[in-house]
């Protein structure tokens, strides 16, 4: 390691003030600090020791929590592919199809967004934001498996520039960066990200007889139009080529078409477990999103006038991207409510809104994305009320 350290030390003066590559100082710094934690010490006055945690480690913890979703996603992409073709395949074949589809998306997302980060580091002269470690992984996980790569690149670039760097970087942004990428694609290129795009099928592929690529949300919506019970529609879906594909347990485990990383509620819960154990994600937000969705679902059951409203509330928790959104998107500390009381309100409203959008807005079958983005915008307002209450308590104390 000494050789590497020496190389950095030798190169350093070129990047410091007056050096040849001074412009790229923060790029150099980022490279250096990803290899070696820096030798800076605490100031002479104040806390002489510091907690071992830093932002890089914090962000990597989130990435690690996403790995179960990624691995399952890779497998599921291949699995759904062969299921739709009606072919049996070995685990190796399934995984290789998954890898071929998923890895390029991950690489493109990291590369495109990362490049923008570096450009901004040079132009704006600020340190590289570690936040992109997480964003670069989140974006692929909320993409359909056959999304064109150029769209991934465009969406990543758009999200980093508009949702993050325009506000000053990680810590300053208002909207969740990865969701902005998803929303951008949704409105800019709706063809590739809605409808029956959730299973990877090469052009001209011949699907199995009776095949339909409809997601549970689309099935539920359709059932409602047709006036059949949603649960019944779920159980009859896939008959002949994928029996019970939309049974509750199957959807919980995630063996269904959908975004790469979000189909498995179980994997999301494993991620949630990691985030909560490590204290990196707010359990209050995760729990309250689920509670809000379940509560709203149960309430709609009571006043149901159509079949979607009558769908048992627990189904809301396993279909679509609710679990993934609750665990990985809603908990983004920068865009979520920042006060502890505010986190409850924020999470609950995300859950409630998700179900409302799902059930009442047929144009946007998946509600979690828009619900979180909307609540990102309202989070400062929630915090405002919590902070005002804190101030008021202080003032009232004075009056007594």
């Amino acid at each position, binding site marked *: 390691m000494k050789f590497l*350290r020496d190389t950095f030390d030798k190169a350093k003066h070129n990047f410091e003030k007056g050096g040849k590559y001074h412009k790229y100082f923060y790029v150099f710094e980022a490279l250096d600090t990803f290899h070696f*934690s820096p030798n800076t010490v605490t100031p002479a*006055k104040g806390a002489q*020791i510091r907690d071992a945690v830093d932002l*890089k480690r914090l962000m*990597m913890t989130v990435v690690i929590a996403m790995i179960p979703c990624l691995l399952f996603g890779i497998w599921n992409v291949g699995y759904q592919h062969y299921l739709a073709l009606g072919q049996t395949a070995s685990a190796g074949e399934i995984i290789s199809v998954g890898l071929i589809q998923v890895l390029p998306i991950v690489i493109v997302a990291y590369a495109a967004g990362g490049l923008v980060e570096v450009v901004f580091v040079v132009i704006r002269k600020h340190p590289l934001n570690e936040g992109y470690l997480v964003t670069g992984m989140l974006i692929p996980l909320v993409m359909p498996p056959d999304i064109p790569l150029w769209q991934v690149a465009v969406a990543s670039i758009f999200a980093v520039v508009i949702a993050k760097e325009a506000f000053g970087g990680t810590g300053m942004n208002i909207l969740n960066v990865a969701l902005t990428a998803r929303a951008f694609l949704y409105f800019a290129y709706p063809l590739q990200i809605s409808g029956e795009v959730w299973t990877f099928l090469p052009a001209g592929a011949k699907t199995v007889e009776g095949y339909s690529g409809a997601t549970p949300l689309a099935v539920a919506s359709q059932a409602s139009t047709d006036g059949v019970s949603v649960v019944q529609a779920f159980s009859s879906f896939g008959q002949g080529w994928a029996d019970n594909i939309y049974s509750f347990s199957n959807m919980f485990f995630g063996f269904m078409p959908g975004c790469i990383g979000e189909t498995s509620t179980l994997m999301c819960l494993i991620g949630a477990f990691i985030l909560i154990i490590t204290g990196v994600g707010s359990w209050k937000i995760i729990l309250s999103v689920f509670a809000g969705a379940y509560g709203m679902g149960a309430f709609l059951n009571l006043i149901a006038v159509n079949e979607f409203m009558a769908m048992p509330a627990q189904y809301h928790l396993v279909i679509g991207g609710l679990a993934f959104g609750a665990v990985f998107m809603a908990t983004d500390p920068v865009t979520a409510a920042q006060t*502890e009381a505010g986190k409850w309100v924020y999470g609950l409203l995300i859950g409630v809104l998700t179900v409302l959008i799902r059930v009442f807005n047929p144009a946007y079958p998946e509600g979690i994305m828009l619900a979180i983005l909307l609540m990102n915008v309202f989070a400062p307002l929630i915090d405002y009320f919590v*902070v005002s209450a804190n101030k008021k308590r202080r003032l009232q104390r004075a009056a007594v």
Partner: protein
Amino acid sequence: MGKFIRLKKGFDINLAGKAAPTISNTEQPETFAIKPTDFQGIYMPKLMVKEGDSVKAGSPLFHDKKHENVLFTSPVSGEVVQIKRGEKRKLLEVVVLADKSIDYVQFDKYSVSDLTHLSREKALQQMLSSGVWVNLIQRPFGIVADPNEKPKSIFISAFDSSPLAPDYGFIFKGQEQFFQAGVDVLKKFTSGAVHVNVHSEREISSVFSQVKGVELNKFSGPHPSGCVGVQIHHLDPINKGDVVWTINPYGVIQIGKLFLNGVYDASKIITVAGSEVKNPQYYKTYSGASVKKYLTGNLKQDHIRVVSGNVLTGTSIGKEGYLGFYDHQVSVIPEGDYYEFLGWIKPTASKLSFQRAFGLLSFLTPKKEFVLDSNNRGEPRAFVQTGVFEQVTPMDILPTYLLKSIIAEDYDEMEALGIYEVIEEDLALCEFVDVSKHNVQSILREGIDLMLNS
């Protein structure tokens, strides 16, 4: 009478190198120094001595231009050997070379019964001119108390919950009568109560348990339960316009000695502790002692940081520095100016973390004593994480919002968010746990200075 307050939030930092309860018989240091920078709210110290002057214990060395009657006096008798100045001739240290035996300025002596009849004015005069006055700290803002103020109450934290802190029962042993006398004098300055706060799970020294005429409150919970600002918040919070005073038991005892013995007695027992000290133990010395003698031959290695005070709020003074006025401990930790390959992600059980992010394993060994160095453990970033400051701040205060209002220089917000209630030590743990490595305490002091000068 007193209250019992259970605090849950906070964090005890368990460091290696705790002091053994023995007092070393090392001989006294040659030099002692008083540092104007130890005192908050003192902007223009005016020197009253020059190099070569001889002084007695209790002779004035300098005063504040704003309050000319607040005198800062010499802890020992001897000769002023150095007046150290920094940039723009800022006064940094007044160094006194101590006599072998100490010669005291004589002040008025009182018997215990006389003290009850002593008038506030007379007491004030003697406290100001002897130098014991500056033990009194005024809240809001943690500045040296203004003699013209009438505080609504006075608070004494009778335990120190910070890392490697001295045991107050040990260092104030046998000072019962002086502590009582000090309390009796202090009661003349407030119409409210004098609060003495102890920790419910520690042994309570008779110095504090037997004192009369005070509210004896019990606290439980981890650091910062011993920070007097936290205690005030729960006992009698500071609102806009309120003034309260705080004082360390050492100051109370010093006041007691001033009136009972008629001298400014700056002797104190300190600890020299920390992982890099061979024999961490206690020493009997005087305020402002040079720490050199206590470290020579007593260090495990040379690449160290010597801190006057505790590792959360202290000041790095170097191996030949002087003990801070308000400090009772010297902490010696390894200097952390090294690179670490993949240090940002490598799992570690030897570095302490309040958090449990990937690879931070210290939470598995809550009883372990840690050797922590002065490495910054990462780079400064914008505020990202939320909710962690609140977990180490046992007060109804939102530290992140307060800090942001200070950075934005928004006076109304600072006031509304509670800047009157906190000083550096109360939020020191926030600085420790901060993933974005803000210098929380210096930001807070900037905010306080803004408020003071507005």
